[in-house]
């Protein structure tokens, strides 16, 4: 199809541009905008007779009405894909930004992807060992899962993400990390990339960077470019791909900004009413497909505004993802790393990926016991703060000790400390010894005999 060029730009507002006299454009189509020798890209977000509204990814700064030329390319926003992408760094739209030159694309794909047919999915049940006790023991990550980290400003979520991607081991197959920086501060992105480089992991990484200083609208495309790449490596080339996206809060901010420019009726806190559906088109791209080798596992990171888990961003995310890992400021202040608040954390796919044949037979009951006992610790602590520790009953005192051990010995671990699942579970039994046996009701008698009394 011949590409037609238009000059009739009638309005510019924020990242949006309106062109008049358009014929034959299609919805969601890719657009090139040329002005004073520079080319930007955009996409059609609304069409009317003779009129198209275009969202410009690089922003509209410096554009003018008469001098701007708009070309409709007759295809959706696509990106080039190739096995050579390993070890490279791209911008938020999938163009190389590491100065190593262009890459020859083997494939071109629409970055929006298509929904996976539930019939074609394979139910995920293979455990990924992260080497972190809290996660492996109590919110096990499963291959093909989407498990976000709910964090706050200043909490060590990037460190945790790096540690997970470095230590993550699967039983078989090739492993690869796709990293998408969405509106991330330069220092954070540098930290993450450097950590990978230091450990020699960079050759197994594809990175997409949209930094805080980069155009806001490009953030809409960044996770999609990363996931298109992940799907290519997973479902075409057979890799097990872990996708880390940080920070999804910036993505949602960008979504709100554009919605505002479009004059849409806002829903909660000014975020658009379609934010749930929009986030779903990102998060639901995790999974395993029948008859294909690889898998896409997602570890999105988001900072909860004001540490508020009921804020629309963590809230809508939690409804789509298969659980969440919540970081706690309180634990962080007390010097506990990783500061994971296990009680509000959860892995929905854990139940089918642990136990006999997956991790160890005692794992399901044991993790239930840890949750129940540690949740009792919170009540006892609240009580102790009112009546004083001395006034507590002996059982309550035992719970206090258990709580202390749980946080200092089980939860805490070094940033390079890699515990295997056996070590994690044995450690859990070890700290349960703080409690009298009658309090241990979630595990079976046989398990107590076999694991708690063995040493």
């Amino acid at each position, binding site marked *: 199809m011949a590409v037609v060029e238009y000059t009739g730009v009638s309005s510019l507002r924020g990242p949006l541009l309106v062109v008049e006299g358009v014929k034959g454009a299609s919805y969601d189509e890719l657009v090139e905008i040329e002005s004073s020798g520079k080319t930007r890209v955009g996409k059609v977000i609304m069409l*009317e*007779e003779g009129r198209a509204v275009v969202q410009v990814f690089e922003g509209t700064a410096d554009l003018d009405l008469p001098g701007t030329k708009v070309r409709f390319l007759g295809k959706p926003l696509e990106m080039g894909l190739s096995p050579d992408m390993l070890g490279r760094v791209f911008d938020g739209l999938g163009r190389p930004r590491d100065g190593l030159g262009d890459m020859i694309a083997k494939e071109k794909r629409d970055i*929006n992807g*298509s929904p*996976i047919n*539930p019939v074609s999915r394979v139910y995920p049940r293979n455990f990924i060992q992260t080497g972190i006790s809290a996660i492996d023991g109590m919110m096990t990550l499963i291959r093909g899962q989407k498990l976000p980290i709910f964090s706050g400003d200043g909490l060590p979520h990037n460190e945790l993400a790096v540690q997970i991607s470095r230590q993550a081991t699967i039983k078989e197959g090739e492993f690869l990390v796709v990293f998408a920086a969405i509106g991330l501060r330069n220092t954070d992105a540098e930290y993450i990339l450097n950590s990978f480089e230091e450990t020699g992991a960079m050759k197994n990484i594809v990175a997409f960077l949209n930094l805080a200083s980069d155009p806001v609208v490009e953030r809409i495309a960044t996770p999609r470019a990363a996931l298109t790449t992940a799907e290519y490596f997973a479902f075409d080339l057979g890799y097990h791909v872990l996708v880390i996206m940080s920070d999804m809060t910036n993505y949602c901010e960008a979504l709100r900004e554009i919605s505002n420019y479009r004059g849409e009726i806002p829903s909660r806190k000014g975020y658009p009413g379609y934010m*749930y*559906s929009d986030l779903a088109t990102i998060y639901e791209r995790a999974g395993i497909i029948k008859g294909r080798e690889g898998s896409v596992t997602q570890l999105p990171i988001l900072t909860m505004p004001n540490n508020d888990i009921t804020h629309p961003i963590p809230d809508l995310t939690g409804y789509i993802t298969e659980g969440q890992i919540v970081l706690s400021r309180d634990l962080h202040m007390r010097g506990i790393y990783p500061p994971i608040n296990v009680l509000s954390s959860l892995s929905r796919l854990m139940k089918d990926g642990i136990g006999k044949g997956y991790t160890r037979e005692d794992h399901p009951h044991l993790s239930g016991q840890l949750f129940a006992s540690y949740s009792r610790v919170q009540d006892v602590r609240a009580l102790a703060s009112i009546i004083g520790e001395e006034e507590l009953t002996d059982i309550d005192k035992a719970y206090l000790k258990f709580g202390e051990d749980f946080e200092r010995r089980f939860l805490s671990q070094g940033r390079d400390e890699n515990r295997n699942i056996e070590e994690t579970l044995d450690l859990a039994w070890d700290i349960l010894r703080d409690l009298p046996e009658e309090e241990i009701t979630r595990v079976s008698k046989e398990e107590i005999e076999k694991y708690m009394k063995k040493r």
Partner: protein
Amino acid sequence: MSAKIIKINGPVVIADNAENLKMNEMVKVGKNKLVGEVIGLDRGKATIQVYEETSGLKIYEEVEGTGRLLSVILGPGMIGNIYDGIQRPLSELERVGGAFIPRGVEASPLPKDTKWKVKLLKEIGDEVREGEVYAEVQERGIVHKLMVPIGVSGKIAKKSDKEEFTIDDVLYVLEDGTKLGMYQIWPVRIPRPSKKKLPPKIPLITGQRVLDTFFPISKGGTAAIPGGFGTGKTILQHQLAKWADADIIVYIGCGERGNEMTEVLTEFPDLMDPKTGKPLMDRTILIANTSNMPVSAREASIYTGITIAEYFRDMGYSVAIMADSTSRWAEALRELSGRLEEIPAEEGYPAYLSSRIAAFYERAGRVQTLSGEEGSVTVIGAVSPPGGDFSEPVTTHTKRYVKCFWALDKSLAYARHYPAINWNTSYSGYVEDLKIWYSETVDKNWYEYRRRAMELLAEDGKLQEIIKIMGEDVLPDMQKLVVGIARIIKVGLLQQNAYSEVDSFCPLDKQFKMLKIVVDFYDRARKFVEMNAALSEVLKGSVVSKLMRMKEDYKTAKDLEELEKEIEKHFEELEKVYKE
């Protein structure tokens, strides 16, 4: 002249020259023939909601009417199937488009080639009326009855002499030329008629103690399960789909997770119905419109599901429908309303949210069907309130139209108390209606025992407030006993592990026996506490832990008689000590 697109805004499309289109008519949009529905008509312009992704659609592409309202096709072949929101079989979409969902695919909801053995019930010359059964087909676990479509009646003029039929075959021809075939078509937004509504007198048994014993639902009843994320809505819905004693289960995954639908798909064929011993898939119909599938099809999926449910109700079956989650459906309404530039009411939801929720739940009920049989549709809807806040519009409006409210609680879920149904804030409006059934079928004292247990829980709730501030030690022994017994009720009765082989489903007689054991234990223990017996001896550790584990350690109500004897012995020994 045919209708032409003049505006595209996401899933909403406006077409000009649309004089020939009707309100709610199903249309084919653009050259890819995307499925859509007319949702507004204004001076020759039609507003169309498109059920598929609109990328690539162009101005001036054609919109083609189909002449019928958005409908489902009802006939043999639905059971065990999995559909998208507009009744396209997902396995057929997979065959055509591979692992990713293709667009513009037309797929027959009922298999075209399957040969069905049909028992013809009518003869030439017989008069048939609407709703009357004229033939029967054995479909998986049930007898699928073919009914005369609504609005059709007359004398049979011709009868087919075949025994096996495919879906497009004709069975009978009436004198006026009307053909009776293997299927009928019904518009999803219109409730199917019945003769009259019947009172809710029979419970839907779920095998979940907290529901059957404490907050029961009747067949034909309505319930809402509200809960923030991670409180176990989906697991509870799955449990209900597995164990509820309905003949047919319609499970609607409305805007939920893909992996969860896959879980149902992989798990259900291997699970057996405790009542019939047949695979659960033999009574289940799945509708999956996951969160990343088009939002307008999500809006339709609820109606597709309930229409299918009503069809089976009309055959005289009890049908239970699980919608997970109605909040996603409400959000789809909100999203589409926004695109239509309607003036929003609360939190951006359209003003008609309340009436749409009402209309959906009102389609539940136990009825006498047109053919005189008894059937029911029970509706259980999950609600996902943002931030777990029950004061938001979808929860509050739903509360007005359902009679059971099974409130899921975050703090219970955090402590891994499952099902995390809060016994203080939940309620069932059916307890009085079902009283007679329970006393006749389970035990004449059921109502009284239930009341006593609820009373203990309520008293415990008050005492917990004190304990939070002062510790348990300050309570007098009698109140400590209440706290101890309440703990047994909470851990021993209310908690139920969905993944336990023994306890995933708990039969009614066992439920009652457990309840009786605990309440009777309390009554006897009281006497000793009154006699100033040491509480630690009355609530002896070994006995209490047996009570807490009785759900797992004793398989049946009969086995529990063992435990009763042991308790008897415990009190006899106590008696010996304190007599002296």
